[in-house]
């Protein structure tokens, strides 16, 4: 370890934030760029499954809440791209990596939203999992990232509550609505658990990330937190978690739960999810269709600048 590296690690160990202008190991920079941009991409792609129901929201109030939520997600994308940019990579470069398929986004968004109840399930389970994943990151070692996560988490917790509120209305609604809610829980439960990533045994790079304090808890710890938090909520809704092996373990003080189908996880990751192709295509097409627009803004700004600098 070089002197720089030692000093760097010492700062981290002392709980001092690393800032953009500070020296940092190339691997730390790269890992962070990958992690932050993947998160940013997830916010952007994550707009699509919800956008799918915004024109069909059942009341004006729900429509308004959903629109605001999607807008927040765009905002999160913006903070996160900015945080990534502090590491010396431009938003356009990151988007190119997304569009070419090189960069990833959260696999959960490769599942379709098939009913209004999915707007509830996504808020409750997907945003719920995201928060559990992200709250520790508010204390991560890289300052710009930690600060972005603080803003993100604050809004996400609203979203999770709004999602749960949708589920509550459905669960207390007509039999058809309750069935809709149960069906959504059935479809989103396992993918939400998969959001925490492979189990610790199978997880790579974790040790280094832990040392750098950009990963503060293991995947399995966080996943357990999600299960423990969510099961009582499902019970309160009167819905059944689709896991026959799920039971309270008084000894550990946690819920035991069934085995995750990692084959499905990897299959979706490899591009075989129900919506992988469509999600990426939608984003690429939006980007391509918008090129003339972005070019025009640049051209106009150039004209203005030239005029101003003209004698």
């Amino acid at each position, binding site marked *: 370890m070089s002197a720089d590296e030692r000093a760097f690690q010492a700062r981290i160990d002392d709980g001092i934030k690393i800032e953009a202008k500070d020296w940092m190991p190339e691997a730390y920079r790269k890992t962070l760029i990958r992690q932050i941009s993947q998160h940013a991409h997830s916010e952007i792609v994550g707009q699509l499954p919800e956008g799918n129901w915004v024109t069909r929201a059942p009341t004006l109030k729900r429509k308004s809440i959903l629109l605001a939520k999607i807008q927040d997600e765009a905002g999160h994308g913006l903070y996160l791209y900015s945080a990534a940019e502090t590491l010396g990579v431009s938003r356009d470069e990151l988007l190119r990596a997304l569009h070419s398929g090189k960069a990833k986004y959260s696999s959960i968004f490769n599942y379709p939203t098939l009913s209004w109840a999915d707007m509830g399930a996504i808020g409750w389970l997907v945003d719920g999992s995201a928060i559990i994943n992200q709250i520790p990151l508010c204390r991560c070692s890289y300052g710009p990232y930690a600060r972005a996560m603080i803003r993100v988490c604050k809004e996400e917790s609203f979203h999770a509550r709004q999602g749960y509120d949708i589920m509550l209305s459905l669960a207390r609604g007509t039999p058809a*609505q309750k069935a809709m809610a149960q069906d959504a829980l059935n479809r989103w439960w396992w993918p939400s658990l998969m959001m925490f990533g492979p189990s610790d045994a199978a997880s790579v790079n974790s040790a280094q990330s832990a040392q750098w304090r950009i990963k503060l808890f293991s995947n399995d710890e966080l996943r357990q937190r999600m299960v423990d938090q969510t099961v009582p909520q499902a019970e309160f809704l009167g819905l059944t978690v689709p896991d026959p092996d799920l039971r309270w373990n008084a000894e550990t003080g946690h819920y035991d739960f069934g085995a995750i189908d990692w084959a499905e996880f990897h299959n979706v990751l490899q591009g075989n999810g129900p919506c992988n192709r469509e999600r990426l295509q939608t984003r690429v097409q939006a980007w391509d269709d918008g090129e003339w627009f972005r070019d025009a803004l640049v051209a106009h700004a150039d004209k203005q600048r030239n005029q101003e600098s003209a004698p």
Partner: protein
Amino acid sequence: MDDKVNYLLRLGDNALILSQQLSRWCGKGPALEEDMALTNVALDLLGQTRLWYDYAAELEGAGRDEDALAFLRDAHEFKNCLLLEQPNGNYADTLMRQFYFDTWHYFLIEGLTRSADPRIAAIAEKSLKEVTYHLRRSGDLIVRLGDGTDVSHAKTQAAANALWMYSGEVFAYDTVDEAMVAAGIAPAAADLRAQWLAHVDEVFTEATLTMPPADAWMQSGGKQGRHSEHLGYILAEMQFLQRAYPGATW
């Protein structure tokens, strides 16, 4: 139907249909900042819709609430102007539709702040900051696109021409509108139109765009419930859940 209720529904329907159209862009805009700004406009319009509908429902006293008005009327009962149901098209089409609407909407809302009906005046007062921002934003974008590249100029001019024939309906006052003017509730058409033409002219000049002739033929019918073929599809999608699950609470 009572003239004032009718008038309020026209205001609400305009805002709702435009908001609905804008919300289709969610996650598909040409830039992240645009996604956010457009969603912001959609949200503002949705909020205004609810204010107009709530007042209309209250005056109507027929037990319909904002959701019944939005989700349980068929196309011929909608009173929005034809401009707002025109398809999103490309982003220049969307922005030009917005600019034509925002210009009228700003001057209208500004006029309504002096309405003889205090509730209408209060809603207008509450909306004025929003519509002022909308107008500044869409005018600014029209200038940047019109005076951007050759491609953006051509697209923007094409949008200006194509949507022009839908820009006049807001000034074609019928007995409902005239009753509102007579009661001091709404501003007169001629004043609004003069303000509209002057502002569009100013922005188009800066944008190096050619304004189509002011005396061109203008389509109408929307306010009276005679729409284009687009509205039926918009409503079929928007109203699905309320129609398919009647009586449910969401």
